[in-house]
């Protein structure tokens, strides 16, 4: 058995990958019939479209979610000696988690540069994710 160095996928490795990928039910029947890695293969075949991510929808969903926890939740805490502490915990959790999520999505809203990918990754991602 030849010992492969896993870090660098050689051309034969890529072909093996392609064979494995074609065995997977990814996309439609066109993928299975595509000849291996020819330049003309891509031009006539319709690409499945990637869904565009909206910005407004996640904002609305998460704002409502954390808003319910942080603003509406305190009204439903039962009376008892720990009421104050539980309300503080709910509000603090809501604020911290919402802020953290908001920072993450805002940072990716207008990217100034894109990811730099290896060519093998491009091959792989192209056929697996789309």
């Amino acid at each position, binding site marked *: *058995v030849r010992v492969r160095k896993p870090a660098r996928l050689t051309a034969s490795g890529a072909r093996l990958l392609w064979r494995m990928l074609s065995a997977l039910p990814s996309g439609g029947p066109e993928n299975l019939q595509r000849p291996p890695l020819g330049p003309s293969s891509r031009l006539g075949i319709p690409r499945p479209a990637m869904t565009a991510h909206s910005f407004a929808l996640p904002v609305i969903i998460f704002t409502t979610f954390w808003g319910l926890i942080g603003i509406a939740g305190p009204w439903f805490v039962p009376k008892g000696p720990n009421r104050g502490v539980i309300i503080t915990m709910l509000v603090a959790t809501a604020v911290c988690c919402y802020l953290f999520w908001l920072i993450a*999505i*805002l940072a990716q809203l207008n990217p100034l540069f894109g990811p730099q990918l290896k060519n093998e990754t491009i091959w792989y991602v192209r056929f697996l994710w789309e």
Partner: protein
Amino acid sequence: MGSMFRSEEVALVQLFLPTAAAYTCVSQLGELGLVEFRDLNASVSAFQRRFVVDVRRCEELEKTFTFLQEEVRRAGLVLPRPEGRLPAPPPRDLLRIQEETERLAQELRDVRGNQQSLRVQLHQLQLHAAVLGQGHGPQLATAHTYGASERTPLLQAPGGPHQDLRVNFVAGAVEPHKAPALERLLWRACRGFLIASFSELERPLEHPVTGEPATWMTFLISYWGEQIGQKIRKITDCFHCHVFPFLEQEEARRAALQQLQQQSQEMQEVLGETERFLSQVLGRVQQLLPPAQVQVRKMKAVYLALNQCSVSTTHKCLIAEAWCATRDLPALQEALRDSSAEEGVSAVAHRIPSRDMPPTLIRTNRFTASFQGIVDSYGVGRYQEVNPAPYTIITFPFLFAVMFGDVGHGLLMFLFALAMVLAENRPAVKAAQNEIWQTFFGGRYLLLLMGLFSVYTGFIYNECFSRASSIFPSGWSVAAMANQSGWSDAFLAQHTMLTLDPNVTGVFLGPYPFGIDPIWSLAANHLSFLNSFKMKMSVILGVVHMAFGVVLGVFNHMHFGQRHRLLLETLPELTFLLGLFGYLVFLVIYKWLHVSAASAASAPSILIHFINMFLFSHSPTNRPLYPQQEVVQAMLVVLALAMVPVLLLGTPLHLLCRHRRRRRRPTGRKEDKAGLLGLPDASVNGWGSDEEKAGGLEDEQEAELVPSEVFMHQAIHTIEFCLGCISNTASYLRLWALSLAHAQLSEVLWAMVMRIGLGLGREVGVAAVVLVPIFAAFAVMTVAILLVMEGLSAFLHALRLHWVEFQNKFYSGTGYKLSPFTFAATDD
């Protein structure tokens, strides 16, 4: 609201305890654990206090207890735990306990002594029997036959006739490690005049004192001449050998042996009886000792507490001063009433005003106790200042999680903590003695929350054991880029690295809805993106955390009636902080929202803008983010700088003015106060009930107002705040640094261990077998390096951020805890 937000109200109470009932009252108070006694006899040494005799008696009794305990332990028995409620016994019972204990101790000592001497005797008998029974055959034979044979000329000593040489014997036993030395010395000293034979016993004998088995060496020395005999005896004495009389005749020896064996049998029977009696005595000790120990400990504690009370002039009652929570005052009075009613007298307690700062009391349950413990480790809060603990319950695990974010590691931590929480009531778990386990167990709720938040931040960072997951489809389309840039396979084969350009239509489809896009984990430049993201995140979180700290100070100022500080300290502080670093946060968010990839090449650099803001300079290559940016920035800097003198001089000047105003009309004000309150002042921070806050406090305190001290204090505070703003904001960058370190360690572990394991072998069988040890190594290193080491590291840094950066905005931590007089600590 809950009482965790600030300390409960604690009052100083004065207790009048009639002498007859003093002991029972204090004992009852110890059972309840409500009050902390103040030492009224601090100037008196321990030997001159009233109840020193009783304390000494208790201590002597405790010494006897220790002796008994040691004896029980030596016998290999265990003292059972005392059952039920054991109140401190009345003083007259002490005599009874003392007598019983003394009696038991004496019996034990006697029995032990007997047992010891019996053992020594038995040992001697056994040695004697062994020496006699040992066969030194050849020597004896030679002694008879070679008495006057050819051998004699060889053993001829210079001088001295041969005729009166008669063979004598010395028989004995010597310890095995001394035998060679003995042999050598005998040979050197008496060479030629003796024959010594050594042989080892087959069975080891137990040493009577230590109980260790030792194999003795018996020796038989046959010698000629009286002087040699004396020499030999001296030598054997020197070596501490046991020498026994040796009879030459065989039958005599056998008779002696028989007698010895009989004697040793009898001795063993007696020894058995002694040991049975000893175990009986030990049984009685086991019964008596545990409750007696608890009772005497409580009694001693009560006497020590009584020693702190002062005796009234009429000697009829003891006066005690104690701190007690206001909420517990009724319970205190009831307890005093009940315990003194038995004696027919009445003990009372009433509240007195106090000049000193009361201790802080914050009641916690098992969940909040660990968070309060974190805050208290830094410093116990001043009386009634804002307690950071309820906010720490969430912010501490959150900041930990920001530095630790990984779904897999967080889940492991959460499950570990959950196991501890679910098993917390099991007695085996509670009784564990291991200190490290106790540390982890004590912080189980902390670990639970830390793990939970780490799972959340792990999802946001999109890392699970350093692997990203695509819960939603990625927002970057590689195919679109490839198609529109004409990335043919030949092109790809030539170029190993290619970058996706967000300017190309269809490449960037929108921000990933929850967390970081999974494409970044495949990218070679993912650190460039993540670093920028995490740095900005750290600054935003830091500014928010610190602003929250400054806002908490508002509650302190309002509670202590120092509203001038709202305007003269909180407002300038907030303006300074938010004007400079809040503006930085604004710049960051503005750039995120408004600068898109289309203008990426000429994107403004926030860093350069921020530097220029302070230097009032301008970089032509750096375009502004919004129109009139420079004007706005200049205004903000000027405003912030203007706040510094307000912060520096505002409060001291205000206090000085007020002081002068009060002094200018002293008489009127003082009379008003006397009429209104009738109570003296309180400390500067104005603890206590509302009447005292109203204004009586400043009166006498202002008389001691030292201007230079106030100015100095405020100058230190100003410098600390302003410089601290900058350094503390930078300090929050550790959130970025540690999360980066964690991500990289995690990545390296995966790449170096698991990926190699998963890539080995094409046949399924080989891979499966090889994966088992590889996964074991991965698991061990994950737990040891990533969970334990990184966990401790992130814990430490989150703790530092809380203690220093957050708490120095509002918390002084210079109080002391209410430690009530209670027996609970002595009851183990």
